[in-house]
């Protein structure tokens, strides 16, 4: 599953640590989500989408492979 977390974070000029603090998760978890190694839970996916002002289906695309 591809996601747009890195793209949105870079667009807003945030570091991974800053995004992690805003989402109350660890920096390592942000790295894992961005690289597609970890699929966040539904509550966290909603938190991420809400943080960037997007919908969950705009942030996470189930039809695309991570890294493609």
């Amino acid at each position, binding site marked *: 599953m591809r996601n747009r977390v890195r793209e949105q974070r870079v667009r807003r000029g945030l570091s991974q640590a800053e995004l992690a603090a805003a989402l*109350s*998760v*660890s*920096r*390592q*978890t942000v790295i*894992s989500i961005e690289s597609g190694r*970890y699929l*966040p*839970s539904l509550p*966290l996916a909603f938190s991420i989408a809400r943080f960037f002002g997007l919908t969950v289906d705009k942030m996470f695309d189930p039809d695309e492979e991570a890294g493609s």
Partner: protein
Amino acid sequence: MRTSINPRLRKPAWNALAGVVFAAAWLVRGGPLWWVSIPAVIAAAVRVISLYRMGATDTDEGALAGSRADERQRQLSLRSRALACNLAGVASFVGLTAAIAVSAPWWWPFLAVLAVIGFGYLLGLSNYGVAEEGPADDADTGYQARSGSR
């Protein structure tokens, strides 16, 4: 009542308690091996200090040691525990089989471990899963029966 212990101290505190109890067991046992309680306390102290220090590091292990793990780190811990339990089960089965094969009297601890693993698994199923499932939606008076009659 919820304790207000600092999260970073939780795991070290439990380890300290376990170390003290283990050392006390050697003392209570008495005999010529009472001195084992001293290295047991030292080992526990080293573990407690290293856990406390690890709890401050910016790593997955640090987050777990400091009791501040997020959902991915908790999942990581859960999967590691499951793997450890699987390995313990396989090792116990191998031990039990070997003990039976050589007619050894030490077969029962392996069986006890297997029984505890099996009991724990069933307890987990009843606590976290099966019992919480309700009836299927189409079992009530709902949609499918009506739509099928159209």
